[in-house]
């Protein structure tokens, strides 16, 4: 399956990327598994499993680690928000 990934703010800068299309193995089925899968790329990517405060959104809504990821989803990772 293929998903769309987005990275924002300090995470975007640390990864040097604002997003990507990505083909996922079948066993990467939720947000927690996706974070581990990405962290395995090494270096800056390890923030995706090591940062407690990092947030995830699935199809533009904030979700927890158990949220299921399916083909065509848009997943975003970002630090706590600071608007207003």
């Amino acid at each position, binding site marked *: 399956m293929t998903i769309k990934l987005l990275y924002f*703010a300090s995470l975007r800068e640390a990864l040097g990327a604002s997003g990507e299309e990505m083909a996922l193995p079948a066993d990467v089925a939720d947000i927690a598994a996706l974070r581990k899968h990405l962290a395995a790329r090494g270096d800056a990517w390890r923030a995706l499993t090591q940062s407690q405060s990092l947030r995830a959104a699935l199809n*533009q809504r904030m979700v927890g680690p158990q949220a299921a990821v399916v083909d065509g989803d848009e997943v975003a990772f970002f630090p706590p928000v600071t*608007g207003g």
Partner: protein
Amino acid sequence: MSVSVQREAFDVGNEIAALTGNKFDIGAVASFVGLVRNMNVEHGEAAKVSAMTLEHYPGMTEAALEEIVTEAHVRWKSLAIRVIHRYGRLEPGDAIVLVIVASAHRGDAFAACEFIMDYLKTRAPFWKKEEGNGAEPARWVDARDDDLTAAARWEKRE
């Protein structure tokens, strides 16, 4: 159209007039404007701020703000609500955010306006990067525990 996410500045008077014009059941209009300050007291001894850049998540931002406005309509007797949040580069004194709530009575207007600001601070996907005096690189603003506490007040009432 109750929610706008835009680069452009806004005019509070015009926005209030547009929201309340030709509605004669409105008795109370509470509004809030958030401005860029020239210092950030979180960073040591009130670090100077010369500008800030707001990044956001297009699409999710609008959806998150719409959801907060809908929740405010459910909780209070509001007659009209307007939210504008800017992104891009802003300087001290520039307006960042505007919330206007019109209702029959002032209690509803004040509560809904403060609720929207508190929820927006912790739920709308915006991130601020501050420029200081130029001697060091721009820094991302940390989320404030105060804002989590403020938002949590409204949970307890449910």
